[in-house]
């Protein structure tokens, strides 16, 4: 027992993943684990390969080389991963928990079966649909069987109506949670930027994920909103126990909420550990903020500024 969930109880293991685009190596031989129930931050300077790695995890890109193992209930076991890797299958559920090899799955299958939900750097809401509808579409996977794949719903069976009203309740709970109950029926695209960011997180949560991946959730938010976001993420994790993996540039947010920080630079992992360890890692300070002494001063100040209260 180390006390670190990413060592004791990992639910995601990225294993020597490399992603190349033509001659460009965007992610180079990166390995790390994400602990169950942790908030894990993936940081690094622009162009370090964070979003590319995210896209590999969520199936939008196929990694050129490497393995990504995932178990929604945590407790990844190396022997079982190796056993599954040797077969041609994508998942196994013998020996207890479900185990998935994400690099073998299509993007929508990862969301549907492995229950990994994500948000995007450039918000991707269904902007013409209302905020409420956005949250209901997110529950598509649960609602579709209840609607008899369209047939029962068409003739208006009560079983579907029940399922739908449950979905609406859930959506309402989330809208209240992010302070958008009042604007439930407005088109998502008409909401202010900060609200859209939170709505996208709520939408991902409505899909009932085991792992929530957030790509720069605080980008474009002011200090006040960022603070609110950090609180929201901590609360979400606290209540639902969902594991969170986020890419973030806002050091204040990262240091305030993460349990585990992974640092990438030029596609390679340069540090991995608790926020405290990472903050003091000289390689991180040098790579992340430049090596000039003049810049080190304020940079360190920024990194140490926000300590947990």
């Amino acid at each position, binding site marked *: 027992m180390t006390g670190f969930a990413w060592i004791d109880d990992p639910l995601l293991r990225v294993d020597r993943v490399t992603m190349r685009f033509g001659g460009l190596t965007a992610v180079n031989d990166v390995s790390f684990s994400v602990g169950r129930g942790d908030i894990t931050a993936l940081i690094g300077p622009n162009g370090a390969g964070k979003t590319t790695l995210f896209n590999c995890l969520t199936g939008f890109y196929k990694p050129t080389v490497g393995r990504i193992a995932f178990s929604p209930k945590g407790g990844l076991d190396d022997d079982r991963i190796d056993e599954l890797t040797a077969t041609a299958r994508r998942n196994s559920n013998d020996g207890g928990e479900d185990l998935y090899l994400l690099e073998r799955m299509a993007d929508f*299958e990862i969301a549907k079966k492995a229950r990994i939900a994500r948000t995007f750097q450039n918000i991707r809401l269904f902007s013409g*649909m209302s905020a409420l509808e956005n949250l209901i579409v997110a529950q598509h*996977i649960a609602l579709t069987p209840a609607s008899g794949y369209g047939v029962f719903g068409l003739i208006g069976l009560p079983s579907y109506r029940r399922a739908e009203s449950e979905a609406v309740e859930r959506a309402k709970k989330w809208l209240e949670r992010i302070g958008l*109950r009042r604007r439930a029926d407005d088109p998502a695209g008409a909401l202010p930027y900060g609200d859209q960011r939170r709505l996208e997180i709520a939408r991902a949560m409505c899909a009932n994920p085991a792992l929530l991946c957030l790509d720069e959730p605080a980008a474009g938010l002011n200090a006040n909103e960022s603070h609110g976001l950090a609180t929201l993420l901590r609360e979400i994790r606290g209540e639902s126990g969902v594991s969170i993996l986020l890419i973030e540039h806002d050091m204040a947010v990262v240091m305030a909420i993460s349990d585990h920080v992974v640092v990438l630079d030029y596609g390679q992992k340069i540090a991995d550990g608790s926020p405290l360890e990472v903050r003091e890692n000289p390689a991180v300070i040098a790579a992340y903020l430049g090596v000039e002494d003049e810049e080190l001063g304020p940079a360190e100040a920024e990194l140490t500024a926000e300590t947990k209260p």
Partner: protein
Amino acid sequence: MLSAAASPFSRALKESALATLIVAGLAFPIIAFRADPDFNNLLELSARWPLFLAFCALGFGLRFLLSLWESRPKAALALAQATTGKQRKWLAPAALAALVAYPLLILALLGPQAALKWVDTFGVQILLYVLLGWGLNITVGLAGLLDLGYVAFYAVGAYGYALLAPLTGLSFWALLPVCGLLAAFWGFCIGFPVLRLRGDYLAIVTLAFGEMLRIVAVNWDAVTKGEAGLYGFPGLTFFGLPFIPGPRGFAAHFGVAFAGVHKLIFLYYLVLAIALLANFVSIRLRRLPLGRAWEALREDEIACRALGLDTAKIKLTAFALGAFFAGVAGCLFALRQGFVSPSSFTFTESATILAIVVLGGGGSQFGVAMAAALIVGSSELLRELTFLKAIFGENFDPTQYRMLLVGIAMVAMMNFRPRGLVSMRQPTITLGPEPEARS
């Protein structure tokens, strides 16, 4: 203040002069002259300078007004933003009642002979386009898949009926769903490879498939009889009673005088019922996970995949369901027309149906129906106005002007209300205003 008042005017004048020059350039050979073959079949030019000058004047006038309008005081802007009327509750029942009463009213007013044209051209024909519009609306308006080969599925339905009816001896009641399923099957087969393409490629490939199907229909003489088309297949019957004069016909059975319009009235109600069914299905599906997934797909495909939606399957359902209604419409078209030939299924037809959906404001069922009535009905109405021939000459064909105007309207719609389909959209489910907090 004086100079400020004078300057917009002189600026408008300058801009209009430029616009006139441009219009003159555009109009120069194509409007100023017309080439027509003479008796020796040699082309001869005839000048049309008055028309040319009229165009130039029009260009000047329009640009002038536009310039003045653009430089108007900004306070006027708020006024220009007219509020859009809310959907009236009584509209749908009233429209339905009018549609049901229409053929009987026409019959009562005009008598069986004169009513023929009104029930057929303005009734059945428009309703067929409404049905086609509602079908394509599922694919284009809801799911956002631009299908330029929609007419192919219409053709599958029409040829399906014309070929299967004599072959199998089945009644149209049995063949109606068969034609729909046949078209849906084709939609499935074509959709399977093409639906993973990006939007505009998808449009072009569907166009290519539509044209290929038509060329096959033109050339595969053994089955389709080529350009001549198929005719002589069994027509419409009233639950087994044919619409023929004589003792075994519909008229004799019900003891009324035979009239050709009876068949058309029956067909009218048949098409109306099926169109309403299509309407019901679309409205209902919009409120179900499948329909919401279509709309989400139109909004952002990548976000859909991130939420676990199997976009390929969802697209395929939209594509196939749209095709299904086109197939049913094709079967009804064969019944109305009595013959089926490739010339009814050209790209222009696809473009017309697309225009109905686009101008109807996508997504909106009522708008699509109105656009169908307007686009199809207006040109037929113009054809009736014989005095226009006196003005425009004997060769005046309003359908040409129809497509000309439809083209302009599509461009204008995209310029001014590109998301007409969404901006007027009613959410499929609402929470309503927040209830007051209980004390």
